């Protein structure tokens, strides 16, 4: 496995955008250096011959965990909605999600 290129300021800005984080210029500089250092250290995972080794999906594998399809009580709606920053007609209310109509 080849080691990827060193992470750049532009990479960090891109990743922050994907993760819905807004960073100041100072934070971008700081995080770029810190993430590069951590990734450089982590690159030693590539030092091992891993031919034929399967990736771990679960430490203790359990498969097909099913339960009977029965009606059961769920969380109280008012109690759940009571924690929301904004609610309207028993629904979570958010600002607009699409652009203005043309």
């Amino acid at each position, binding site marked *: 496995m080849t080691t990827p290129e060193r992470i750049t300021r532009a990479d960090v800005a891109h990743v922050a955008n994907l993760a*819905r984080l807004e960073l100041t210029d100072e934070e971008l500089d700081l995080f770029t250096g810190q993430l590069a250092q951590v990734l450089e250290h982590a690159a030693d995972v590539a030092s*091992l011959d891993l031919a034929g080794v399967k990736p*771990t999906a679960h430490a203790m594998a*359990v498969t097909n965990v099913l339960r009977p399809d029965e009606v059961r009580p769920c969380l109280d709606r008012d109690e759940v909605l009571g924690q929301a920053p904004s609610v309207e007609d028993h629904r979570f209310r958010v600002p607009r999600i699409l652009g203005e109509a043309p």
Partner: protein
Amino acid sequence: MSAPRPSAYLANAVRSGGRSAVEVLEESLAAIDAGDGEVHAFNLVMADEARAQAVAVDRTVANGEDPGPLAGVPVALKDNLCTRGVPTTCSSRILEGWRPPYDATVVTRLQRAGAVVVGKTNMDEFAMGSSTETSAFGPTRNPHHTGRVPGGSSGGSAAAVAAGFVPLALGSDTGGSIRQPAALCGVVGMKPTYGTVSRYGLVAFASSLDQIGPFAATVADAALLFDVIGGHDPADSTSLNRPTPRVLSVLDDGVAGLTVGVLAELLDGADPDVVARVRQAADALAAAGARVEEASVPEVVLGLSAYYLIAPGEASSNLARYDGVRYGLRRDAEDTVAMNTATRSAGFGAEVKRRIMLGTYALSSGYYDAYYGTAQRVRTRIAEDFHEAFASFDFIVAPTSPTTAFELGAKAQDPLAMYLSDFCTVPMSLAGIPAISIPSGLSEGLPVGFQLAGPAFSENRLFDAAYALERAIGFDGSAARRRPGG
């Protein structure tokens, strides 16, 4: 100065009517009141709720009924365990004020066992850290030396037990977050086999690694708490449906005839004083009748690297839920994406942002194979190597932490240096196996932790060996205990 009262005796005294749960609770609350201004183990002390619980326990006893094995025992909860109607913050601004609509399974089990929940303990934000300094509410201080960190991320729970505020506490361990603070605070901390304790109601960090486990002043107390919280839970699909042995009943088998391997690779990076203490503890095991040899699991040295790709990867996905829509903080903006971004940028601290970005990067197109995929293969190798080692050894032993408690601020600006604190604990997490840290003495007044790890589901034998070793070592942690007026 009294010894820490083992919880089993405390519970029996309450069950028999010899002591009242209310009186036991008031002692705990008084100790917190006197000492927690300095230690800051708690985010929240639930005095009213706890008093109501204690009164109910006493009423049960008065009615001639049995409140359970933890009757009247005060317990502290790490603040990432959901408590219905009581704030659960993960020491993050993004959850400030949130009151969960349900209890974690472990909380329900504690209450059914008669325990009294006294409060929520401080932690690294979303359990990301090794010093409790990334908490949005300020650091916890080590009761042995208040200029030092308590370790992390469950630093508040470890400190609460070390300071004598509570005899028992729960934490969560993803890469060492129970064992490392237990070591730094001079208490017992245990990470169970993955899937043994229900994660329902534990706020997720890295779901393939997270496990809840006990803190206590003694091995027997940790075993008592483990017995109460363990066992299958249909509400957690990764909870294993197999019989869980009650470990407390087997705590006197000793270590004679066991073969123990001292893990050479984890001694290499540790401070000389830590290595010396670990060697002494290994000698004590030998003197108690165990055969002690050197063990080698070469791939554990890659554990830290694999962990810091896998855990942030899972975290970046788990923490996507904090979007300002359903609970917690919201920073308003003109559209939803801008609102999500403003909320997350204001609500998360620097370490959480770093881990989310690290994880997003390690999972992103073009880098997935090199980072996350490779790390998961390394994880498989580490698990296989441990499995192989356990063909020759009953237990593997190692330092819990490469150093004793470091000074507040010493590593706060250097993420990689902080991550290296987890060097001795992440390999067991990756392999999903159980491990316990017990105090093995002091070095310049600071506790040193000794870690024992066993194969999956070896909890009963692991507690047993730790119990025998604890008696051989005879650690005295009383110097850290804070008392009312003391």
